[in-house]
């Protein structure tokens, strides 16, 4: 990471927690964890409340769909770290690797329900172009996506349009797939608390 404080600036208690995570998971501590645990009162804790509500709060979208939305937003941000991390969570949530790789490979041909595909397209446009307009939203509503579902998808996009910028700006280290799989298991069991 580009800021030494994010690697080494944590309190003694947090460093002890990291040691425990390394021992129990047999994986390095993910940089996203190091970020939210550094001066957690400033960013980590208030952001985790947003992320937990967006990703695990009440929604018509199942967790797998929301994690796939996160991965699509990450891909549209060209954020390698978040794309891999949340593709892994989506795969674990769906118990299906093919659907996630297909969606990330070609959204137009992947075997997805049309409301989800239309939502993912809107999120991709919002992320790439920093805006969508009323016509985009009319098309989504016409595709059968409800207003609460659109709001929930936008909440996911908010969380990951923030996270991806931080992952890329702070230079998160991209570990091997096993570290992301361990992270995915944790996020499915415990959420973003």
């Amino acid at each position, binding site marked *: 990471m580009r800021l030494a404080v994010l690697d080494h600036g944590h309190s003694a208690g947090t460093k002890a927690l990291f040691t425990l995570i390394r021992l129990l998971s047999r994986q390095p501590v993910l940089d996203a964890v190091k970020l939210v645990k550094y001066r957690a009162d*400033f960013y980590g804790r208030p952001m985790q409340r947003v992320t937990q509500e*967006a990703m695990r709060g009440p929604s018509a979208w199942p967790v797998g769909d929301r994690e796939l939305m996160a991965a699509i937003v990450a891909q549209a941000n060209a954020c390698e770290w978040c794309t891999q991390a949340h593709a892994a969570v989506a795969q674990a949530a769906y118990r299906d690797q093919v659907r996630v790789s297909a969606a990330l490979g070609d959204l137009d041909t992947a075997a997805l329900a049309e409301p989800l595909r239309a939502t993912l397209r809107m999120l991709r446009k919002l992320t790439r172009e920093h805006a969508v307009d*009323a016509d985009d939203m009319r098309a989504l509503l016409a595709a059968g996506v409800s207003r609460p579902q659109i709001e929930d998808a936008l909440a996911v996009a908010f969380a990951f349009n923030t996270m*991806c*910028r*931080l992952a890329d700006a702070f*230079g998160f280290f991209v570990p091997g797939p096993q570290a992301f799989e361990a992270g995915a298991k944790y996020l499915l069991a415990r959420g973003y608390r």
Partner: protein
Amino acid sequence: MADIKQARAVLEARIVEGAGQAPPAQRRAAFNNAGVSEPLAAVIDKVARQAYRVTEGDIAAARASGLSEDQIFEMVICAAVGQATRQYETAMAALEAAAGER
């Protein structure tokens, strides 16, 4: 429906106005991606608009402008949350416009 309204407001107030090492006016400027003084302005704009292109050199430039690591941490977070907020609010307004007609 998931409701992030209050949690988002708390987050924004905390990072911009709460206790920190960069002055709140500078954090607000980073959040808005407007009114940041050079050479930091270029780095903040990159975080907001093209974060995947941020390099070691950008962070070095932030340091060279006199910022501590903790101040860079705060300013980058403000820039990231600020841009995500503008995207979110633009999309919510578009939804309001479209749904309001139905």
